[in-house]
């Protein structure tokens, strides 16, 4: 019946949207945030932020607490008004509209279910406000209850539900009005780890089925990476990078993003003038204090500064006792560092090693535990060779 929902009635049809001008052109994004500023006292919570989000997208706003992501979400919902800039929905400025006038709904962090109303009345709340006919409300509530698998719980009060059930009611209530955009504020933060994983999958399936644009705010990067088509990483009220999860991880735009998303080894250094003897492979030579000379594949964007940071993800650093195996292509194994293992963290699927390099710096390496019994595992005090390829290195200009 959920499939039916997606085909028979377009979910993007809003219930209570005031008349709005027809889109001027087809290339207008569903949501355009244009140079929006929000100030609290002297503090700029959102600082000239611009962002386009397309119809049907699953977008995640990721950032540390206090980065302004929740303020941005609250501006989209209408609980805060932008001090400057515009929020355009289908090319129509909704920045000054009150929350109840927007074709946008929100799922609150702690669900904010009405404690005095039953599950059914919670879901029907928004439909009644839209002046929907009673028989249509009954049908829509039944549809929503089935969609989030709450059958049999319609008469319960929120107090009588488990955390996961409350989350479903909140989702059903927010989706009942068929919003153009569903805003989700830390939707899974209140759930335990196991439930969080299954709920992630359900949210993704639901979003694909309905085709509704989801904008989720989270501080949990795994959650953002798992669910979102695109992620906007925020810091200090600005978007540091907007990219797919893969781009974000493999090609972070800045040192801040590289350090915020996942684990990374960073070495500051200077780019050396091009060496003619190595000209056959397009690569840069960077002299670092902590890791000596590092060869890095030439990035697509030309590097403009000479003072840079070389970044390498731990899982791309291989360890061995005697250096790369003889059959490894010599040009690929060109970055070699020697050191002593100081810490071993066994994490189940992977093991993380901390290697103290001869320069004194610490290098982290993460290796997949592909065999149950690993005779090659390293222990503290083992002397090892850490190596990585130029292709796996990134050059970050701060």
């Amino acid at each position, binding site marked *: 019946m959920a499939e039916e929902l997606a085909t028979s009635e377009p979910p993007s049809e809003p219930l*209570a949207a005031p008349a709005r001008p027809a889109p001027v052109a087809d290339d207008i994004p569903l949501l355009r945030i244009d140079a929006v500023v929000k100030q609290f006292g002297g503090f700029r919570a959102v600082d000239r932020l611009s962002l386009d989000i397309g119809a049907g997208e699953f977008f995640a706003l990721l950032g540390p607490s206090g980065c302004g992501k929740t303020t941005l979400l609250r501006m989209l919902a209408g*609980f805060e008004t932008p001090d400057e800039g515009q929020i355009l929905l289908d090319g129509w400025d909704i920045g000054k509209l009150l929350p109840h006038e927007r074709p*946008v709904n929100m799922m*609150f962090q*702690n669900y904010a279910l009405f*404690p005095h109303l039953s599950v059914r009345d919670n879901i029907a709340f928004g439909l009644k*406000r839209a002046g929907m006919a009673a028989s249509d409300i009954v049908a829509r509530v039944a549809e929503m209850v089935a969609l989030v698998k709450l059958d049999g719980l319609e008469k319960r009060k929120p107090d009588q539900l488990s955390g996961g059930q409350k989350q479903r009611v909140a989702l059903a209530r927010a989706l009942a*009005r068929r919003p153009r955009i569903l805003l989700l504020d830390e939707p899974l933060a209140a759930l335990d780890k196991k439930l969080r994983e299954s709920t992630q999958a359900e949210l993704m399936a639901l979003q694909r089925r309905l085709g509704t644009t989801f904008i989720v705010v989270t501080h949990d990067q795994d959650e953002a990476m798992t669910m979102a088509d695109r992620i906007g990483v925020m810091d200090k009220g600005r978007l540091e990078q907007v990219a797919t999860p893969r781009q974000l991880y493999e090609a972070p735009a800045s040192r801040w993003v590289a350090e915020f998303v996942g684990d990374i080894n960073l070495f500051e250094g200077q780019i050396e003038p091009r060496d003619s003897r190595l000209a056959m492979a397009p690569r840069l030579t960077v002299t670092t204090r902590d890791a000596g000379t590092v060869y890095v594949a030439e990035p697509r964007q030309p590097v403009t500064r000479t003072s840079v940071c070389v970044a390498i993800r731990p899982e791309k650093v291989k360890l061995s006792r005697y250096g790369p195996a003889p059959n490894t292509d010599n040009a690929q194994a060109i970055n070699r560092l020697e050191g002593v293992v100081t810490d071993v963290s066994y994490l189940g699927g992977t093991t993380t090693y901390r290697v103290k390099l001869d320069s004194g710096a610490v290098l982290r390496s993460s290796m997949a535990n592909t065999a149950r019994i690993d005779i090659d595992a390293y222990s503290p005090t083992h002397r090892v060779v850490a190596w990585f390829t130029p292709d796996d290195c990134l050059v970050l200009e701060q």
Partner: protein
Amino acid sequence: MSARRIFAGPVRLAAIAPYLWMALFFLVPFGFVLKISLSQTAVAQPPYLPVFDLTEGLAAIKAAFAAFSLDNYRLLVSDNLYVLSYLRSFVVAAVSTSILLLIGYPVAYAMARLPQRWQGIAMMLVIVPFWTSFLIRIYAWINILQHDGLLNQILLALHIVPAPVVWLSTDTAMYIGIVYSYLPFMILPLYATLAKMDPALPEAASDLGASPQATFWLVTFPLSLPGVGAGCLLCFIPILGEFVIPDLLAGSDSMMIGQTLWLEFFTNKDWPVASAVAVVLLVLLVAPLALYDRLQRRQLEAAR
């Protein structure tokens, strides 16, 4: 078993202390009052008969019990002075409580929406009048409301009235005094309920398309009902037995039950009738008290 161990020794003593307190300072005195209400007035010391005399043995006590009568209660029903006093008390308490709710709710609502650091100051301002004696504050109102008092001076100076208005010894003055005195008892429970309400709830309502009015009536007000109940009962019950404010501010043409009781006791020296008035008042109060208890229990269940 473990529960039994928890309530052993000194802890058990602490647990029964409130019951002891209630028995000693409520049940026993109430027993005295009940007994006096069944007795007859007498020119004696104490001014009623029969008197229990334990030295004269069981037969005398039996005789004393036989002498008990419901005459005083019959008087309460037959003389409409008492019925009218009770009625007036209920009307005054109901009207005052309604006015208190109408004034107290907006104040508590505004307080709960103040920034956190201002909420403490607002709370202080509500409580500060308690630091002055209640009687002095009521006398101050006499000063304000009298013929050449502050209120009339202001009204005359602003040319709102051509001649001084009679305020004192009217029901208006009494209502002003009652509302003024009991306002904190209405505001504080309302404020407590409104302040602890999740601010996301009204936001969720408006997000789901409810106008500000609809949000208030569909979410905020229903969720504040426990506070409304607590505030109303905290005001209604003491106002019902109020004696000082009507005595000092209202006219003498009609009396509240507290005044009637005082009159019977101190002016008429009719302890038995005064006791009967008190017993009936208590019975009439038990109904709202039981209601309050049920409300509180429901609130506790809701919180669980």
